[in-house]
C-alpha cells in the first residue's frame, strides 16, 4: 500500500466506493488531476481548473467541454459556446423530441407508419444534463434511425423537423470522432476499486489514439437506407481522415 498511502489513499479506501464526490473519489481524482498533490489540486480548483472527483465525471467533463455541452460562464455569460455542434445538436434534439414525445402519441404514429412498410422504429433516448456521454448515444441512435426518420418525414409527416443532408454528414463525423472519448467515459465509470488505478492507463491509450489515429470509421449517410433495427456496428461506414497527406500516402502504399 506504500504507493497509494503517499497520496492519502489508505487500506480502508480499497473497500469504499469510488463515485461522485465521495472522499475516496476525491483522493483518487487528486491522483489523476494533480499527481496526488493536495496543494496543487487546491490551487487548480481555486483557479477554476478541474477539481478532483470520480474519473467518470472528469471524463464526462472533458467530453462536455469539448462539445460545449458543459457551459463555462464569465460575468453571467456563456463563454465557450461552440456553434457548429450546438446548432446541430439543437436541431437534432428538436427532431428527436418530435417523434419521442413524452406521451408517445407522435411516437405511436411514427411506429405505425414504419410498421406499414415492415420497418423498425424505436424511441431515441434523450441525454440528461449530467451524463453528457448520453449525447453520443443519442447521436448513434439518430444515425441508426436515419432511414426511418427520412421516410416518415417525406411520406407521412412533413411537419417533422428533420435535419438536412449536410447535417447528417456532420453528425456522422462528430459521432466517429467522439467514439474513443465516449469509450473512456464508460470504461472508467465502474464503481470498483481498480478503476481509479486503471484510468491513467485508459487516458494514455486515449491520448495516443487521438495523436496517432488518423482514420475514423464514419457512418456513410449517403449509403442506401438501412432499417433502424440494424445495430450501430453494422451500419455502412467510410474511412475518413483529418490529414490529406496521410490519405495520399495510404494510396501510394496500397
Amino acid at each position: 500500500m506504500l504507493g497509494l498511502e503517499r497520496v492519502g489513499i489508505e487500506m480502508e479506501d480499497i473497500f469504499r466506493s469510488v463515485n461522485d464526490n465521495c472522499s475516496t473519489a476525491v483522493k483518487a481524482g487528486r491522483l489523476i488531476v494533480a499527481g496526488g498533490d493536495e496543494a496543487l489540486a487546491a490551487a487548480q480548483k481555486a483557479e477554476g481548473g478541474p477539481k478532483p472527483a470520480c474519473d467518470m465525471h472528469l471524463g464526462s467533463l472533458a467530453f462536455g467541454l469539448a462539445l460545449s455541452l458543459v457551459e463555462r460562464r464569465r460575468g453571467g455569460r456563456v463563454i465557450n459556446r461552440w456553434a457548429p455542434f450546438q446548432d446541430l445538436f439543437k436541431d437534432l434534439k428538436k427532431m428527436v423530441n418530435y417523434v419521442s414525445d413524452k406521451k408517445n402519441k407522435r411516437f405511436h404514429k411514427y411506429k405505425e407508419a414504419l410498421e406499414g412498410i415492415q420497418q423498425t422504429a424505436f424511441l431515441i433516448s434523450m441525454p440528461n444534463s449530467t451524463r453528457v456521454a448520453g449525447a453520443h448515444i443519442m447521436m448513434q441512435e439518430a444515425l441508426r434511425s436515419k432511414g426511418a426518420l427520412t421516410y416518415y418525414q417525406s411520406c407521412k409527416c412533413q411537419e417533422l423537423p428533420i435535419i438536412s443532408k449536410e447535417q447528417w454528414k456532420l453528425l456522422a463525423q462528430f459521432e466517429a470522432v467522439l467514439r474513443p472519448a465516449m469509450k473512456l467515459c464508460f470504461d472508467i465509470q465502474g464503481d470498483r476499486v481498480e478503476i481509479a488505478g486503471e484510468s491513467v492507463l485508459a487516458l494514455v491509450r486515449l491520448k495516443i489514439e487521438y495523436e496517432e489515429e488518423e482514420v475514423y470509421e464514419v457512418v456513410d449517410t449517403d449509403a442506401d437506407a438501412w432499417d433502424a433495427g440494424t445495430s450501430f456496428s453494422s451500419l455502412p461506414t467510410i474511412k475518413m481522415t483529418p490529414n490529406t497527406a496521410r490519405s495520399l500516402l495510404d494510396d501510394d502504399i496500397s
Partner: protein
Amino acid sequence: MMISREFSWYLSLTCLFSYHTHTSSYYTSHTHRKLDDHAITLIKRYKNSLEEYFGDVTDDRLLAFAVNPILATEGCDDIQVLLGEEEGDDLKNRAEKLLAESILKIADKLLTDKSSSGNGDDNESPNGMLYSFDVYSCLYKRYRNTHIHHPLYTLARRRWE
C-alpha cells in the same frame, strides 16, 4: 546479452511493423476522405479538453502508476490477498494486459518520433521530456525473474540490455 543499437532498432521496427499491420487499418485502406473542418476542430477541442483536465501523462506519471500496488504485478499480490484469489487474479491479469498495451503503444510512438527526427538521442524527446530508459529499466528489473515470456519483458530487455 548485448546487441548494437542499430540491430536493436531493426528488431524494434520489424516488431512494430508487424504490430501495426495486425492492429491498425492504417495500411489497408485507400478510400479515405477528408473530415470536414468542424470535425477536425472537434478533435483539437477534445485534445485540449483532455489536456486541461488530465494534463500531460508523462513517463514519470505512467511509471508511478506502473509501480502502484493496484497495477503492478508485485503490488497486485497485495490486492490478491485483500480480495481473494479469484478476484485478485482477475485484477492482476487485467492490469498486466492494460499495462502491456499502453507501454507498447508508447514505445511505438517513441520509435516513430525518433525515426522521423533522426537525431539518435535516446533519452530525450523533441519536447524535452525524459523518456524510455528509466521506464524500460524499471520494467526489465521487475519482469526479469518471473515473467521472461511477457511482451513487456521482451520489449524492456531489447531496450535496456
